[in-house]
């Protein structure tokens, strides 16, 4: 049973990662920087619980805040860079964050051992959960409370004017401007919210894995972040969740058949998915069909 709880933890955190990219993608910005915000949240929250003895919840809050602030700072220069250049710039930023943590030392003495992040070695002994007697199931529920809250918030955005405005900007910036939409406010706000979600996810990640290092936040993770919403389809938050489950289940099943080669699956899976369903698993057409099935009212 613990295995499935662990699986659910991974799905939960990856969903947060995917959702952080989702909201940015709605505005048409493809950001490979989400792994960087994820890392910042992870280190920030970890350092607060381990080095400063904070309780997890406020530490997560600070992690999310750190992600948000960094994302906001990135959001402004990102405005000057269009399309594919943004992909490259955010990729470089994410790698820059990773290299920063590769060189980052902050150790304090605790008794006769030192704890804290140590460059390439990473940040070990983030033991808030074990030290406070949390079971695997409890950790899983804790993570999922946050995932569900974030999903509800984003789902609410999607039904509100803000969501429609985000998508309008993603569709046609010139038209959006000409009906009075403030592009700067929209793009930077979505980037900031994405950063907050990623920071929160990173904080949760640091605590359930108990050991983070620079390579936990590499290009692969940045790719996962945008892969989930793209593969899942940008019409709905559920698409991202679906994609996470789809990918992780395949990876887990792949472990059974292919053993060590299962990582091969991820790349192949993406290539296959994009060829078969270029607009994502849950694209607008599929969503319309599902809606008709349930007789739901669309839009307003």
């Amino acid at each position, binding site marked *: 049973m613990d295995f499935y709880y662990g699986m659910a933890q991974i799905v939960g955190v990856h969903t947060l990662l995917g959702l952080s990219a989702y909201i940015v*993608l709605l505005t048409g910005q*493809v950001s490979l920087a989400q792994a960087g915000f994820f890392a910042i949240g992870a280190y920030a929250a970890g350092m607060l619980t381990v080095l400063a003895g904070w309780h997890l919840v406020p530490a997560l809050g600070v992690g999310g805040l750190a992600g948000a602030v960094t994302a906001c700072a990135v959001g402004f*220069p990102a405005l*000057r*860079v*269009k399309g*594919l*250049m943004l*992909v*490259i*710039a955010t*990729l*470089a*930023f994410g*790698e*820059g964050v990773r*290299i*920063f943590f*590769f*060189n980052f030392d902050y150790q304090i003495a605790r008794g006769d051992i030192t704890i804290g992040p140590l460059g390439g070695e990473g940040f070990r002994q983030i033991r808030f959960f074990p030290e406070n007697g949390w079971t695997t199931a409890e950790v899983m529920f804790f993570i999922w409370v946050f995932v569900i809250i974030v999903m509800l918030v984003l789902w609410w955005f999607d039904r509100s004017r803000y969501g429609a405005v985000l998508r309008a900007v993603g569709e046609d910036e010139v038209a959006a401007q000409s009906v009075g939409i403030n592009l700067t406010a929209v793009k930077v706000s979505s980037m900031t919210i994405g950063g907050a979600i990623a920071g929160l996810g990173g904080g949760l990640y640091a605590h359930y894995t108990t050991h983070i290092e620079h390579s936990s936040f*590499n*290009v*692969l993770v940045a*790719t996962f972040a*945008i*892969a989930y919403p*793209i*593969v899942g389809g940008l019409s709905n938050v559920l698409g991202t969740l679906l994609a996470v489950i789809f990918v992780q289940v395949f990876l887990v099943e792949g472990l059974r058949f292919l053993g*060590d*080669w299962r*990582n*091969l699956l*991820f*790349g*192949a*899976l*993406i*290539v296959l998915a*994009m*060829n078969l369903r*270029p*607009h994502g698993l849950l694209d607008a057409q599929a969503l319309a069909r599902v809606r008709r099935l349930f007789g739901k009212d669309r839009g307003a």
Partner: protein
Amino acid sequence: MLDFLQAVLDGMLFGATYALIGIGFTLVFGVMHKINMAYAAASIGGAYCGLLILQVMAGASPWLVFLCAFASGGLIGYLVYLACFHFIPLSSPLATLMSTVGMLLLIDEIIVHATEGRALGYPAVFDDVMLRAGEFSLRGDLLLVFGVSVLCMAVLLFLLYKTRLGLATRAVSQQPVAAQLCGIRVTRVNAVTFVITGLLGGIAGAMIGASVGALSPLLTVPLTVKGLIVTVIGGLGSIPGAIVAGLLVGAFENAFQVLRGVTERDLYVMLLLFAFLIFRPGGLFAPKGGGG
């Protein structure tokens, strides 16, 4: 001071490989307005395939290895085209971008598994030769890398500007619809572009292996990032830009390695990118024809 300049010179010579990778990215962007994120990985993959010839013919000359890498690069380039661009409608840019990222991961994993994650030695040529130019030494193998890269660039420029294929390619990059109406088979031009950049990439990968003396799967992501940085600094779509930027990044990288050490070196290359993005987002040169 002398050491510093020597490092800059060495870096510049090595930078010719970055230039080739940058050209590969920029050429695909210029023709299809898409980034092939798998390009650097495919180039390293091609270089690895070059080693296969040693399985068949132990003790084969390094030139044969390079040739095999060259050919493999082209083949892999074509496969990437098929997997990522042939079937996916070009009107879904996110889908093509994502599929090239998928290919990048796939190629990376294939390399890791085929080599069990270990670095493999790569044949070098002229690595025991050292020329002297005044106060500076020029490593023989680096000179070869530089020379081969320059040769490739020259051949590419010849192809683009003196042949009908090159003309068709430039036409497609400027006006794909009009080009089609003139009877140019756009899919064929796209596929050929991938093959040509693949060939270039195979050589670039081989040259990187030759000058470092070894190949490792850890090279793929940093090379992707650096290649993209070169492309952006040079100007998306500009081949002369990629050439100059490649040499610049190579020199810059080595300079900072001397000043701040290997672990921090890459951070400074990023900063160079960000500086360009802030002050000169168009890159060094304006894009050719219909770029951006």
